[in-house]
């Protein structure tokens, strides 16, 4: 073995297998070369120094505060993700509920409308027939096609029964005093009362007749 070969291979002399031919050759070279023997000795010293330096920090670990901070971060992150997920679920649930409510309302409206329009179509050609009313009457603000069945409607001054074809019934809330603007007589003492009134509104958008539902005094 030459000195160059020893420098390359002899570094790991101590860790080589006993029966490794390189090891025996290196040992042989060491016996005959003072320089390589000195070099080898220096390597051994350096190895021991490195091991000692390594041993000083062999048990070194990250301080406990690192684990604490990481776990805190872990919790925060996963809590945030959970909260975000819950918000998304809640949003979708609300949206789905809104769609269901809208669908049911629409179906009901269609159903009610379908029932109401049949007599209307039949009766519309006959003008106003004031013999029948919708049992409960329309809700406040609700508009229905006039079924010409509002027997207790009072024609407003200047209106004629012929104008009530295709009129619609609109339930509104107003102060009793406002009736005077429609040409009706009002008890001044109760003029400030809020009352519900069913107005029969003609094609021109003008009220043609009205009635006071039973609940209104």
């Amino acid at each position, binding site marked *: 073995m030459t000195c160059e070969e020893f420098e390359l291979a002899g570094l790991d002399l101590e860790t080589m297998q006993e029966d490794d031919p390189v090891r025996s050759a290196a040992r042989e070279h060491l016996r005959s070369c003072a*320089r390589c023997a*000195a*070099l080898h000795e*220096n390597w051994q010293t350096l190895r021991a*120094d490195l*091991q000692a330096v390594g041993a000083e920090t*062999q048990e070194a670990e990250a301080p406990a505060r*690192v684990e604490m901070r990481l776990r805190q971060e872990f919790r925060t*992150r996963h809590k945030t993700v959970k909260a975000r997920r819950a918000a998304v679920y809640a949003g979708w649930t609300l949206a789905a509920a809104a769609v269901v409510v809208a669908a049911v309302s629409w179906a009901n409206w269609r159903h009610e409308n379908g029932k109401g329009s049949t007599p209307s179509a039949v009766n519309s050609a006959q003008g106003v027939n004031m013999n029948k009313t919708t049992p409960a009457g329309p809700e406040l603000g609700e508009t229905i096609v006039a079924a010409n069945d509002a027997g207790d409607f009072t024609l407003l001054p200047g209106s004629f029964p012929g104008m009530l074809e295709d009129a619609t019934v609109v339930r509104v809330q107003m102060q009793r005093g406002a009736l005077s603007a429609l040409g009706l007589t009002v008890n001044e003492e109760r003029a400030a009362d809020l009352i519900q009134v069913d107005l029969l509104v003609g094609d021109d958008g003008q009220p043609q007749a009205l009635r006071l539902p039973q609940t209104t005094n």
Partner: protein
Amino acid sequence: MHIEAQERDDVLLRRSAKGDEGAFTELYRRHQAPLYRFALRMSGNVWAAEEIVQDVFMTLIREPKKFDPQRGALRSFLFGITRNRVLKHLERVPRELLHEELDEDAIGQRGRAFEAMTPAEWAEVRERREQVRAAVLKLPVEFREAVVLCGLEELSYDEAARLLDCPVGTIRSRLHRGRALLLAKLEMLRDTPKRAGASR
């Protein structure tokens, strides 16, 4: 949640990604020490090592899907991140050379090992260690990595090659160069007779 001692890293990581804090803690405890030691020995700075390890595991919390079990073990993945962080740190602070104060445990251990020494001997040993440590920290990064892994952490060449993602021959030659530089820095070669025709 119960954690099996030998539960595989990738299984733990999957559980951790789903929010299992126990799985994350187990992963951390399994891997933090060698990563911390590597960062400490490469940087020579306990604060930097602490920050680097924290950063590495933050990455694991934030982007667990970055780890692909098909490409290797979690240990190698974490080591790769640690190595990158260390290199970045060394670029930022290239002249940060000496270890800061070692923690109490390390000092205690060292004290017990040398309790039979006289104060003069102890001082000499301590000075020698400081010189070796400083010499390691002055090595170029690629040689320092090889020396830290094979010389200080005492990993085999194969293990070091796996962690550094390079051939074993590269590790061997880097280690050889690293040791030669260390010897030169420590002036151990001062009394070694020169080989005929060799230039140093």
